[in-house]
Each structure stands twice: as C-alpha cells, then as structure tokens.
C-alpha cells in the first residue's frame, strides 16, 4: 500500500523550506522570523520548550494556520505555496501524525487506516479486504498483530499511535511530520517505530521528528533544529552536537543537572505491600515504601505495572495479599476511599483523568480540596482564590491567571495543575503514572523538583515511567515488572537503565521474549 516516492530528487533541493516566518496572535508574536528546512532522505529533529514556536511552525507547515501576510516563504519541493491549506499541503505529500490521537474512537482499526481510500466491492465498502490490508500493513511495518476489526477505543495508547502512523504510511506521503510520536510508547515499540522511520528515510522520505526526548533525537535524527522564543537558534547535524549542548540551546541557559539531587533520609515505613495480586494482572508483589522515598516502577505495556498502581488507588480491588498504610490495613474499595486515606494518583491520561480542561485552574485545584474549602456545603471563594494563587506560585504554573482554562495550558503546566490539586490535600502517598509524558524539558525538571520536595517533606512517592533514564535519575529504588511479577529490584549501583531494560524485556535465559501485544 505504501508507494515509495521518487527518491531521485536532486539532493540540493529541500523537501520543505520555510524561511523568515512571522506569526502574530493578537498582541503576542509566536514566531519572529523562523526558518525550517527539511531535505529528502533526512530525519530532522525539531526541539524547543513549549512556547518556543514549534507547534506554530508545524501548524503553518500543515496549512492550518497562515504566516503573517508578507512575511517569509513557504516552499514545498521547490514550489512556493501561495495559498496553503490542509488539503493543499496534503496534496503536496505532507502528512501529519498528531500528538493527540485524532482517531474516531468507535471506528475499527481497518476503518481508521483505510479512511478516505476504502477498498470497494462494487459500490460498497469492502470491510473484509480493508481488515486484511490493515493487518498486513501493521505486521509489515511494526511486526505486530493488531486485529483489524478491533475498535480504536479498545486499543492502548501505543496501539492507537501505531494505527495512526500506519494510516499515514498507507497514503502517499513524501514528508512525514511526527509530533511527539513516542510519548505514549514503551521502549520496545519506540525501537520498532525507529526502524520504520529509518526504512522510510532510505526510501527518500523527509521526516520531521518532534520530541521532548533528547536521547531519541540523538538516536534517530540526522539533523536537529532548535527553537527558542519564536526563532530557530541553532540547526546542525546531530553528529556534530551533544545532548547537553542542545538542551542548553533550548533553554538558552546552562542546565547543570536534569535530575535535581536531594538528600535522602527515609523515615518510617508508610506503605507495606505483601503478596499483592489481582487475577489476570499481577501477582506476588511485595515492597516497602518509607516516608521520603521515591520508588520507581516500570514494565512493558501489559506487564501489570499500571495495574499495581490502579489497585493501590482503589480502582480495582486486589484478590490476594495485604497492604498496610501507616500501620493500618489498607484495601481501598473506591478512589474516594483511597483519597480519604491520603493516597492520590496523577494519572497518565492527563487530559481526561487528571484535569477538567474546560474548567479553570482555580476550579481544578479546588476539585481535590473541596472538603478543605467548604463550610456548610458552600465553597469559600476567598480561600479558593488564595489556594489557587499559592498553587500557581508554588509550582510556577505559567498562566494568565487562576481563571484561565486548563485547556489553554501546555502539557507541563497542566501536569502542575494536577500536582497542585493534591499538594494542599495532605496526601501521604503520591502515585504518579508517567508524570512527564508530553512535558517539555524545562517543565520536566520542575516536576522532578516538586517530587523531590514532596519526598523531602515526608511523602512517599511511587513513579511509574517507561522512561528508564528518568527512573534511574529520579528514584531511590525501582521495581521492574515483567508478566505481572517483580522481575528485578534495582537500587544504588544497579539502578541503571540498561539493567532495568533487560529485566523489563524478560531477558533471562528461561523466559520467552516480551509480550508486545496490548494490555493484559
């Protein structure tokens, strides 16, 4: 289904050339003369903090937005595009994989991939053929078996991303723009995505790769352009630069340590988990967590790591084992019960489970503290206001004010809203599920700092992350879950990404390879 575009274009001619782009929104300038030049057969990284102008230049490239009249130049394969529109850009072979999953939840995998070019049986949609084609496509590019008749909404985030990319591959793309493609993927899937991208590159495609993960930029990209404050501040071959250099360019200041250090003086045992199990998800999980400790948990998709968090948060009761919280038995039958015992979760699906995007920052922060802020069933507006003000100042949430809608905030700032929701609630145990997914580097460091502060103030913190580098940098100890069991405990000298990765992949002689298929 994927036709290779003509790779015989002169190497000197850029696939996409944006020069001197200016874009003004109201009083603020999002872009002030930005350049972006992509060449065929190149994987081009685009990095920058949120607000640097990355999304704006992508939207201009997508034809969703137009540059200010009279400013700059938009050229695709040497031809100036005078009236850019999404249709026009797609006609010229520019395809987008958006960060948010823009798939119809109730469509099947086959329907999603075939959308717009459905195989026909006479005048009718040929569902059977679409299903076969979709399955074959996914198998060919990703080596995965995702049934073509499954509904999008039943897929994991990773599988949805795979379907989304497959859809673009099914079209005749000459330039592929991937916005945070790996945000929801685990390492293994990232690797298969990368091999797909390399394959596409060798066929002459031009790929724009936007990522917050510096190690990915280093691994996959040939060239990297750094945006800061509405401009390109650097653009050079990846081979001639380094991660610290890129990060320095991004934030325009020296970044000493990505992972802030903290003095580690654990207190009493807060959470004691013994032989915990839930049928079909995980079994025999045991650990102790002390006040002031940050414990990492990781595992491949479907390993059961996520389910352990869900059980501790009262979303799904355990079938076996025992949990003790501050000396008392703890078996929450509901989220409400968990929260009332001081166990809170910062969920991965931030926009659905973490915040209400149509509410203001103030209202979101209040949501976790209604008991604290209410007298006789009435919410005290002054206390609410001061709590929101404190939260914004405390976590340096970048906003126009407490009444700004959360939808308008960047991922990192939304995450800070979720955190500040719990900071005043007196929570004792913080469960964080992929806390830095789709969060830019600057905000990541801020989130790490908050977690460290929480720990140093005596909270017990569990961080689930598929970013093993992050776990190694942030946590005191880490548990790796493989097929529902603890496959390794890492601490001190052994707390190293490569060792944890091996355990997560089940890389012991007696175990078969990792199970890459969806959630258990």
């Amino acid at each position, binding site marked *: 289904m994927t036709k290779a575009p003509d790779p015989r274009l002169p190497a000197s001619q850029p696939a996409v050339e944006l020069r001197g782009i200016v874009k003004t*929104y*109201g*009083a*603020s300038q*999002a872009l002030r003369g930005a350049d972006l030049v992509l060449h065929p057969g190149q994987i081009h990284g685009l990095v920058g903090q*949120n*607000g640097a*102008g*990355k*999304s*704006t230049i992508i939207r201009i490239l997508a034809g969703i937005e137009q540059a200010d009249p009279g400013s700059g130049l938009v050229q695709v394969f040497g031809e100036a595009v005078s009236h850019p529109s999404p249709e026009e850009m797609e006609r010229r072979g520019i395809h987008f994989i958006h960060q948010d999953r823009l798939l119809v939840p109730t469509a099947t995998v086959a329907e999603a991939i075939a959308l717009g070019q459905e195989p026909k049986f006479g005048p009718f949609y040929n569902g059977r053929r679409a299903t076969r084609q979709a399955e074959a496509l996914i198998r060919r590019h990703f080596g995965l078996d995702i049934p073509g008749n499954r509904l999008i909404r039943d897929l994991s985030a990773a599988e949805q991303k795979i379907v989304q990319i497959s859809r673009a591959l099914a079209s005749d793309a000459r330039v592929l723009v991937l916005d945070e493609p790996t945000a929801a993927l685990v390492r293994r899937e990232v690797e298969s995505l990368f091999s797909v991208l390399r394959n596409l590159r060798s066929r002459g495609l031009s790929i724009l790769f936007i990522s917050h993960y510096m190690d990915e930029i280093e691994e996959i990209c040939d060239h990297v352009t750094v945006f800061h404050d509405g401009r390109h501040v650097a653009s050079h071959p990846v081979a001639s630069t380094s991660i610290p250099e890129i990060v320095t360019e991004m934030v325009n200041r020296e970044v000493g340590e990505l992972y802030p250090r903290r003095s580690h003086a654990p207190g009493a045992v807060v959470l004691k988990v013994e032989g915990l199990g839930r049928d079909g998800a995980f079994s025999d999980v045991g650990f102790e967590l002390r006040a002031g400790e940050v414990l990492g948990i990781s595992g491949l998709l479907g390993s059961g790591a996520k389910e352990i968090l869900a059980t501790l948060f009262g979303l799904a009761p355990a079938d076996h084992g025992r949990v003790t919280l501050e000396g008392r038995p703890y078996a929450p039958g*509901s*989220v*409400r019960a*968990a*929260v*009332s015992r001081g166990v*809170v*979760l910062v*969920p991965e*699906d931030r926009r*659905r*489970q*973490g*915040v*209400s*995007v*149509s*509410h203001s920052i103030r*209202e*979101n922060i*209040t*949501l*976790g503290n*209604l008991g604290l*802020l*209410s007298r006789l*069933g*009435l*919410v005290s*507006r002054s206390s609410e206001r001061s709590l929101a003000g404190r939260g914004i100042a405390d976590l340096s949430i970048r906003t*126009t004010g407490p009444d*700004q*809608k959360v939808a*308008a*905030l*960047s991922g990192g*700032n939304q995450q800070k809203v979720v955190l500040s*929701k719990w900071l005043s609630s007196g929570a004792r145990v913080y469960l964080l599920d992929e806390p830095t997914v789709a969060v830019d580097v600057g905000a990541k460091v801020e989130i790490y700092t908050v977690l460290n502060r929480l720990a140093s103030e005596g909270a017990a913190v569990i961080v689930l992350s598929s970013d093993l580098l992050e776990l190694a940098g942030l946590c005191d100890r880490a548990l790796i879950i493989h097929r529902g069991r603890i496959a390794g405990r890492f601490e001190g000298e052994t707390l190293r990404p490569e060792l944890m990765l091996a355990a997560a992949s089940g890389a012991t002689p007696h175990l078969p390879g990792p199970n890459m298929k969806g959630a258990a």
Partner: protein
Amino acid sequence: MSIALPRAGLIGERLAASALLIAFAGLFLFFALSAPAFLTAGNLKNILVNNVAILGVVAIGMTFVVKSGGIDLSTGVALDAAGFGFAFALTAAIAAPLAISLGLAAALVVGAVNVLLIARLRLNPFLATLALLFIGQSAQRLLTGGGSPIYLGNRSYADVLGAIGRSDLLGIPTPVIVLALVAALAFVILHRGRLGREISAIGAAPEAAHYSGISTTFVLARVWLIAALLSGIAGILLTATVRSYIPMSGNGYLLDAIGAAFIGTTLRRDGRPSVHGTLIGVLLLGVVRNGLLLIGWNFYWQQVGIGVLVFAVLALSYGLRREGRH
C-alpha cells in the same frame, strides 16, 4: 500551543455573553410597541404566573441534570406523578400538607428510579429517562381509566388550592414566590456550593472527577432527586393552578424545560448551564408565547416563532463571538 489571546476577544466575549439578553430586550421592546396590552401590570403578572413560574421550576431541575452531563426526559412524568398523588390524596380527604407531601413523594419515586438506573447502573440518561417517559405515560392512562382528569372543583378544596395557586404575598403571586425561592436556593447550590462544583466536574470531565475522589454515584443521585423534587413542586403548583390533575400534562413542559436550559447556556461564553441563564431562557419563551398571542398570531404558528427565535439567539451569539475573535 498556548498562545494566549486574552484581551483581543474581550469585547466580543461580553457581547456574545449578552446575545441572549439582547434578544430578550429586543423582543420585549417589540411586543411592548406592537401590542398595547403587552406592557400592562395584568399581562406581565399573567406571563409570570402562567408562562414562567411552573416552567421555571421544572427548567431549574433540568439545569442540574444538564450540568451533570445528562438530560431528563422523565421530568414530565415526575411532574404528573406529583400532580396525581396530590389530587388523589385530596379526593381521598387527606389533609393538605400530607397531600402535598404525598405528591412530592410520588415525584421522588420517579427520581429514585433514575438514581438506580443512571447514578448506580450507569445507564445513558437519555435512554433511561426515555424508557421512563413511555412507562410513565402508560401508567397514567392505566391509573385514570384511559386518561380522564381528576377535577378538584369541589368547594372543599378551594381553600388549599387557592392558597397555592391564586394567592399572593405583597402582590406577588405564590407560584412566582416559589420560583424565586427555588431559583435562589438552586443558585447557591450550583454556583456557590460544593455540590455544584462536583456536579460541574462530573458533567465536564467525569473521569477527572472520579480520580479526584468525588463519589460520582452519590453526586448523581442527588442531582436526579433534586430534579424530580423540583418537577414535583411544579406538579403541585400546576394542579393547584388549574384545579385538576390532567394526565400527561407534564409533556407540555418537557421540551420547553430542555429548551430553556440550553438557551440559557448561550448566556456564558463557556456554554455552561446556569440557573440565571435558564431563568432568562424561561422568560424568553414566556414572553414570546404571550406576545405572539397578543399580536394575534395564530396559535399554530407559535412554535414556528419559537423555533426561529432559538435560531436567532444562536446565530447572534455565534456571530458576536466570531466578531470578537477577529
């Protein structure tokens, strides 16, 4: 990206917010000028009592439901249940306060069924209340031998019915006072209270509300009981005003209540339901009904007028919003 465009849209925002008020004021002026009888104390009182008070109470109940992310098609059933219970109790020579309680209890039974189906079993509110609407209509036919009204013309009921339906306090008719009290209380609960926050969160982001430790079951249970109770109050008012229980008269309030609640959401830019927005929606519908009648529009054309009006309000608020954006 979060490129804030804060001030540019402010004027349009304000205007958009007032599209509903502009429409209301315009209509009011139009009818005042074109129908001499419109702007008289008697007629305005008539609008409030006959077009606004009862519908207002029902529509405020609907506002709770809509804010929680649902819709209540059984509101007329609860209204009729209360009317039937009240009328039936009076004919059985039960004392008025107890009769009122029985009527409200009957409405709460409808609410309790909704609590079970929607808050507990998590059925889709549209389907659950639609089923209840069908069942409620049949039940009324069965209970009244095919739909014959219970008349309360007997003099012995005159006192109590008059006290509810036709009395006034300092010149303000009782049903209007009831609406004012209901609206004030609902405003405090929805816009100042903890419950209001929980309802709003569940309506906008049910999962985020759940993950914040809010018991969605209990909050939704209260929403549906409040909605049923308000429909019940409206049923008592209606029965007392028309001095009879007429089966399935609640149907007449269903679409208007939904309409008023949703017209009310155009009051705010963020499109959230509100008690004050709903009240303006109710007033708008009441003024149009009454005004069209006064300027001599054929009764059959009234609904056309209301439909056009809804389009006009939406177009106006949309247009003003766009205006502010560019």
